């Protein structure tokens, strides 16, 4: 066997829709990472389901081949093909990439290269497929915009069918198709967009599903034949998040806050259990514990799951919504908490509304319930952070230890503490702030590591500083960065999200040869400055983000909008579900 895990490429999964049906449009759904990661992505499952349910469309998949397979394809000059019918990518009408993280950009080019498709939209004739990008990275699509004919901003479910219909109407005339497509909400056509001083100015409005209950959901998803990262049935409860942590892009990107009703969820759970055979079902949303009737949902689904010998995977809950009620009867593996910062002051700055007392109380309950394995997540390099805040992280770990050993316990406590580096992201109140240097990142990590060494039972994991740096650069950069991505790919960068493949020196070389200064992307931005993603109307108003930024700098918090709307502005795109008072936000 010359390639590892050939089942990544062979398909044949149960629940595969009819691939031989008569169709007018062929779509290839791509993901710039390996099968096991791609197949764990709910967005991919949703789009695949919707597209294949359309009587005119057949949608196949293609994921990044692991380097062993990639080399084999190159060696034999075989173009990259779809999984289902082994159809070369370049023979499809449309290709859609779901871009989930900045470090996948080179992999996207890797796939195009293997597919023998020119990288830049302007270099592709009408004979090539229409290339579409979607996914969370579209919060700032500029660094990769030049590679695509279309960038979907917002929820693909909404845009997809409209685009496909239009395509069928326009025939193979790419220009006129793109011109018409640009009129659809959520569709950004980089080639046609107007720019001023290199910054896009043509307005694009985020696409939003109005009613999640009516949105299609994959209750007959593909069942992979090999083990994937999240090998379970997934139920999506709601979109958006009330909490408003100021570093969190997902919170603002996925607003307005929309629910699936409990009845819908229970119905989907029944279907999923019936159609999948999974041993586990999980609940997915940004802050699951905030769901209105979370206890009710958990109780109902637990009951269904138990009757089928299926495990309900408990969602990781915010500390303040943590409750003993939810934990009863759950499998006692480990419990996850994300206080994100070590002191109350800094938690106020980032608007993580968790107090030390919340942490203490939750831990007491957790230990009483029998947990002895705690996972803690923090961020380093947050705006206004001082060494005192970092030492505060160690103090929390210390205190948790102390609480645990107040009583005699049978098992030793184990704390897995991880830190990510703060990355300033578009569409957050921190989109203007400076990202610290790599040296400073390393200094902070070492400071914390030395402090944690003194605490029994703590295992410390940290993210690679260089990766965080690059994420920050690509999160906030402009169109010119496409040359860096291309250069980096040509230098040999791919699978940058995988430690064993990441090579920072190649990235440094790419910046050098394109003459762009990496550090200039990490700087503090002026509030008045026009930002590369300002042309997108995400619903959440810039004035709201500025207000939040200013409050952050004063250490003032903003309450969750669960009970009272904080007027973020997203209601211009759709109504939010709130627990009290349904009035227009």
């Amino acid at each position: 066997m010359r390639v590892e895990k050939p089942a990544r490429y062979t398909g044949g999964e149960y629940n595969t829709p009819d691939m031989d049906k008569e169709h007018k449009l062929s779509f290839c759904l791509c993901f710039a990472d390996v099968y096991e990661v791609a197949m764990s992505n709910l967005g991919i499952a949703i789009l695949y389901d919707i597209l294949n349910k359309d009587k005119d469309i057949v949608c196949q998949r293609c994921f990044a081949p692991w380097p062993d397979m990639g080399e084999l394809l190159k060696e034999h000059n075989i173009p990259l093909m779809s999984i289902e019918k082994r159809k070369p990518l370049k023979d499809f009408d449309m290709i859609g990439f779901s871009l989930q993280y900045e470090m996948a950009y080179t992999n996207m080019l890797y796939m195009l290269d293997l597919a023998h498709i020119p990288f830049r939209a302007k270099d592709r004739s009408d004979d090539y497929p229409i290339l579409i990008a979607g996914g969370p990275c579209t919060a700032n699509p500029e660094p990769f915009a030049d590679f695509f004919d279309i960038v979907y901003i917002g929820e693909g479910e909404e845009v997809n069918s409209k685009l496909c219909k239009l395509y069928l109407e326009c025939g193979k005339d790419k220009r006129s198709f793109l011109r018409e497509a640009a009129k659809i909400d959520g569709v950004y056509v980089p080639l046609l967009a107007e720019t001023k001083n290199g910054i896009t100015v043509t307005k694009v409005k985020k696409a939003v599903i109005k009613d999640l209950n009516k949105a299609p959901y994959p209750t007959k998803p593909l069942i992979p034949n090999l083990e994937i990262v999240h090998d379970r049935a997934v139920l999506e409860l709601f979109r958006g998040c009330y909490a408003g942590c100021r570093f969190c892009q997902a919170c603002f990107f996925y607003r307005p806050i929309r629910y699936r009703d409990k009845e819908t969820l229970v119905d989907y759970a029944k279907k999923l259990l019936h159609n999948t055979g999974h041993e586990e079902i999980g609940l997915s949303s940004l802050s699951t514990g905030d769901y209105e009737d979370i206890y009710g949902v958990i109780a109902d689904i637990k009951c269904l799951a138990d009757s089928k010998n299926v495990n309900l995977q408990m969602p990781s809950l915010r500390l303040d919504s943590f409750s003993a009620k939810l934990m009863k009867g759950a499998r006692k593996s480990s419990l996850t908490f994300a206080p994100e910062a070590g002191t109350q002051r800094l938690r106020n700055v980032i608007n993580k509304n968790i107090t030390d007392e919340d942490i203490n109380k939750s831990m007491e309950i957790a230990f009483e319930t029998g947990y002895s394995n705690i996972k803690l997540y923090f961020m380093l390099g947050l705006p206004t952070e001082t060494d005192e805040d970092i030492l505060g992280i160690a103090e929390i770990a210390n205190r948790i230890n102390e609480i645990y050993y107040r009583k005699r316990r049978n098992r030793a406590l184990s704390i897995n503490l991880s830190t990510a580096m703060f990355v300033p992201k578009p569409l957050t109140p921190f989109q203007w702030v400076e990202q610290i240097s790599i040296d400073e990142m390393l200094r902070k990590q070492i400071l914390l590591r030395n402090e944690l060494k003194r605490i029994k039972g703590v295992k410390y994991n940290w993210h690679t500083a260089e990766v965080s740096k690059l994420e920050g650069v690509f999160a906030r950069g402009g169109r010119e960065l496409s040359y860096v991505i291309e250069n980096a790919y040509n230098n040999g960068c791919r699978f940058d999200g995988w430690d064993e493949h990441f090579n920072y020196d190649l990235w440094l070389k790419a910046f050098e040869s394109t003459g762009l200064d990496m550090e200039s992307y990490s700087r503090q931005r002026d509030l008045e400055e026009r930002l590369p993603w300002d042309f997108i109307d995400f619903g959440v108003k810039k004035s709201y983000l500025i207000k939040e930024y200013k409050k952050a700098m004063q250490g003032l918090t903003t309450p969750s909008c669960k009970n009272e709307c904080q007027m973020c502005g997203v209601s211009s795109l759709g109504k939010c579900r709130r627990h009290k008072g349904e009035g227009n936000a």
Partner: protein
Amino acid sequence: MLSFKFRKALNAVYLSHIDILKTINKTLRRTHIPIDYSRGFNPHMLINMSQPLSLGIESLAEWATVQTSYDDPQGFLELYNNCCPQGLEASQCHITQTKPNIAGKVIASDYFIKNDKAVEIKEILENINKKPFFMEVKSKSGVYEKDVSPLIYRIKADADGIYLLSAFGNTNLRCDRFTEKLNQAFNLDIKLRDVTRLNQYVDQNGELKEVGEYIKGLL
């Protein structure tokens, strides 16, 4: 006890043993027949499978046994085949009172190896186990040359290819390595995809009995 014979063909030949186990597990869950689970916090399905087959080899005769009160063999085949992914279809099903312990009892397996050159060295091949035949084997203590002739029970060749009956189970002639060795030794060009397992056999009073026949005897 419900035992069934299934194939491992088409795309499924590339699935590892553990992935096959998981996939069969999910398939059985989708049939919604009442299968027994272990007790405790982490219940798992009570299932036994054939010993692992080398990746890339097709098989017409893999076996699995599950503990269930379901007792309709024909009904099972229909349900199972409606719920299984391509390449893992079942062809036989038997209900027994006792556990057949297939994995523990199997001692041999036969294979058809498609090859049009083998017939040219028919004589040599058919006498290969008459004298020592050394092949590289890997074990915990490392790689060494081992005489595998006692593991080759019978070998025949004709214009279509090679028919091999060899040890399988606790002592095992790995068919992928054996074909590799044949390629080296006799300049053949056998590909893994040309190898098909036909049946598995248990030892019954010193005679080889095909697993399906053996289970029928337990009824």
